[in-house]
Structures are given as C-alpha cells and as structure tokens.
C-alpha cells in the first residue's frame, strides 16, 4: 500500500506512521494508538481498527486472532457533556483537590 495512505480518518494517521510503531515493537492496536493518536478521534477507532490489524498482521506475521481488539470505551458514541451530567447529583467518588489539604491546628499537616 502507498505509505502516505490515511489509515485513521479522524486523526489523519498514515500507513507509514502505523508501520513505525510496529517497527518499534508495538503489536496491538492500542500500542499504535498511544504512540500516534490513531483511533483517538471522534469515531474512536470504529473505522480504522480492521485496517490497523491488517497492517500489524502483514508486518509481524501474527495471525489476526492474536492481534487483540482495541480497548472500547463509553460513551459508545459521542454525547454532549450536559446530557451526560443529567440524572446524577452525587459527588461520592469525584473529589476536589482542596479536599485533600489537611489542616491541623491552623497549619497544613
């Protein structure tokens, strides 16, 4: 394939860039992702995952069944923050940094 061919449409990562990661020992989609941003755009690897798997397969001779799926995450498709922020008023797990400052006798511990 032409080396300049775009593999990740969102982040515009080329074949060549994917190839470089594999040459540096990367062998999963997520390795490629963290080093190039391939698959980090709005579609979250929904289009490029198969293309990258094929490139890894071609370069490492690993069978496709040994090239694991990319880690998939929520939200399953992009969603506005204000919509996500509905139906939740609890702050049980999310803390503010200042909460961690402990004061003892008028002084920081």
């Amino acid at each position, binding site marked *: 394939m032409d080396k300049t061919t775009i*593999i990740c449409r969102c982040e515009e990562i080329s*074949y060549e860039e994917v190839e470089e990661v594999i040459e540096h020992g990367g062998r999963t989609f997520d390795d490629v992702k963290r080093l190039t941003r391939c698959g980090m755009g709005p579609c979250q690897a929904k289009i490029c995952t198969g293309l990258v798997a094929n490139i890894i397969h071609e370069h490492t001779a690993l069978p*496709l069944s040994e090239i*694991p799926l990319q880690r998939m995450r929520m939200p399953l498709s992009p969603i506005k923050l204000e919509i996500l922020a509905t*139906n939740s008023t609890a702050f049980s797990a999310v803390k503010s940094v200042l909460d961690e400052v402990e004061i003892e006798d008028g002084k920081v511990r």
Partner: protein
Amino acid sequence: METDVLIIGGGPAGLAAAIETATRGLDVTIVDESSSLGGQLCQQTQLIRPLPSVYQPMRGFELAKVLTEQINDFTVGTLLNHRVIGLYADGSVGLSDEEKVFPVKAKKIVVATGAAEQAVAFPKWTLPGIITIGAAQTLVNRDFVMPGKEAVIVGSSDFALDVASQLLEVGVEVKGIVEKNPAAAAREKEKTDALIGRGIPFYFNSFIKEARGNGQVEEIDIEVNGEILTVSADVVCIDGGRSPILDSFYQLGCSFGYQKELGGWIPQYNRQFKTDRENVFLAGNAAGISQQGALLLTGMIAGISICEDLQTIRSGEAEEIRDALWEELKLSEYKDVWEGRTKHIEKFSSPVLKDQFIS
C-alpha cells in the same frame, strides 16, 4: 425504568427475539438509534431468501413491515431515537434520548447491534463521494437520493452486488466492480453473471491505486494486472466486508473469540445464544455475519432461550423448538459460516480474549 427483556437493536434479529419473548408474555423493550424499526431491512429492496419457514419470501423492506406489525400486537416498548451510552455499576444499561441519560434495569439483555462495514484504504479514500456500499443503499432506498451519476464499486460481496443492481435500477451508471480476488473466488456466480450480462465490467485481481478530485472524487485509477486504468466516477462505493459491532459486549464484559468465517472477533456464546455474561444474550450479525434469514433464526433462538430462563415456556418444549431452529439455521447460511459457527460454539469455554478491563 425496568423491563424483563431489553433488546439493543431493532433490526431483523432484535425484532425476531422480541416476537418470541413478547408472544410468551414477557415485558419487552427495544432500543434503537434510528427513527424506525427494521434496521438495515428498511432500505433493502432485494428479495430475501431463504427465510425461516414461517415467512413467505419477500423483499427486505416488506419483511421489516411484517416483523414490526407482529410486535405491534403485543406490549413491546420501543425506544426509537435512543442510543446506548454505556453501563452502570449495577448492570443497568444507560440510554440517552439526547436530553438525558437514564438507566434501564433488565432481567435479560439481547445485544443485536448488527454489523459494521469494514473499510478499504487507498490514497485519497477520504474524498467526499467515496462512501460505503451500505451508505449508497441508504441514499437510494431510504432517502431517495441519487448518490452520483457514475459509480465504481470496490468489492463484490453478495451485498455489494445487490446494491450494484439497485444503483442501476435508479439510473446510476456502474462503471465497474473492482475485486482484489480472482474471478474463481466469486461466491455469487449467478449475481455476478447477471451483472456482467448487463454490461457491467468486473475487474478481478484488481485494486484502487488512487482516487483524485478537487473537493470531491472525480476519477480513480484501478490497477488491473499491473496496468493502470483511469475511470471517471463521482461516487465510489467501498465494500470491505462486514464485522460484528462489539462495543456493547465489550462494556458488558463478555469474552471474545476469533472466527474468520463469522466476520472476525465475536462474543463467546453457546447453543442458547447466551454469552458468558449472566443474563446477556445476542442475536443477528452481532453473533457472526450471515444472511438475513439466518439472522432471524438466531433472534428466535435467543428469544426462546430467554423464555426458558424466565420460565414462560417449559424447558423440554424450548429444547425442541431450539433444535428445530438450529436445523433450519444450518440450511439458511453459507456452509463455511455454519461451520465457523459450530466451531465457535464448541470453543465457548475457551475464549481468546477475556477480562479485558483487568490489567
């Protein structure tokens, strides 16, 4: 919100599962991102065959109508224009109606999210006018819009050949079908011959060298046996095959195996179409890419198995129905798909990928 059965995806498999469960007295909720039920069937004008014996042969959009009418007779909740966002810690599924995100607690979940089209990359494949073959079909048969005047199709799956005919019918000139494999590998000999008979050039052992255009695709270079053939086209349809959509399974913590014949990575499941996550079932293309009739059968099997779990049908009776459906499934799909499916089920307890969130 609570329901007995939450079905994710209102396509043929999801609807088939809904019919089986709703007719046996369960409270069923279907969620679908689009504004109508039927999934991809809605824009399929081709004749669907074979279909399960309970249905007469008919076209895709007609089947969508028949299935939708069947659930209308029962109390099935339909959450259209809703999408799954993720999962809560207690196992409830988080849905959004674009105003809020809310949990749905279900006794059983059927994931019937269907298939995604795979890409084929070549220089400048990002140009406007270069679309998936599925997108071309949606434009023509759902939106009633001509995608262009001159089309080139990259790939020659059963589905791509159907869409090629549909493009021809509405007056799009199909300038060629480019297939990387040799002619001998063609699976749909009849459909291929029919298109060749209508004067559509097939380029086997060929691939797209490059697309060009100013702001949108205007011409493409096809490499045929080492020679470059330049063809003018204002629409290029990519058929890279399909693979199951796995996002929901992944969040649910299901394990996966790899079966090339079923479209690559697929969730582990057993003869009940039950995954290795408690209360999570699956159906349709999400359980392996197959033909429409087979997809309905998988939905019916999942539905029957849920009824058995929730005791709205006797176990012996469920087993009998399931056996019969499996027999029919064998006859409804390509031999290699069937064999892949059988192999996959045998490997149920030895997944390739599991515990994907445990580092």
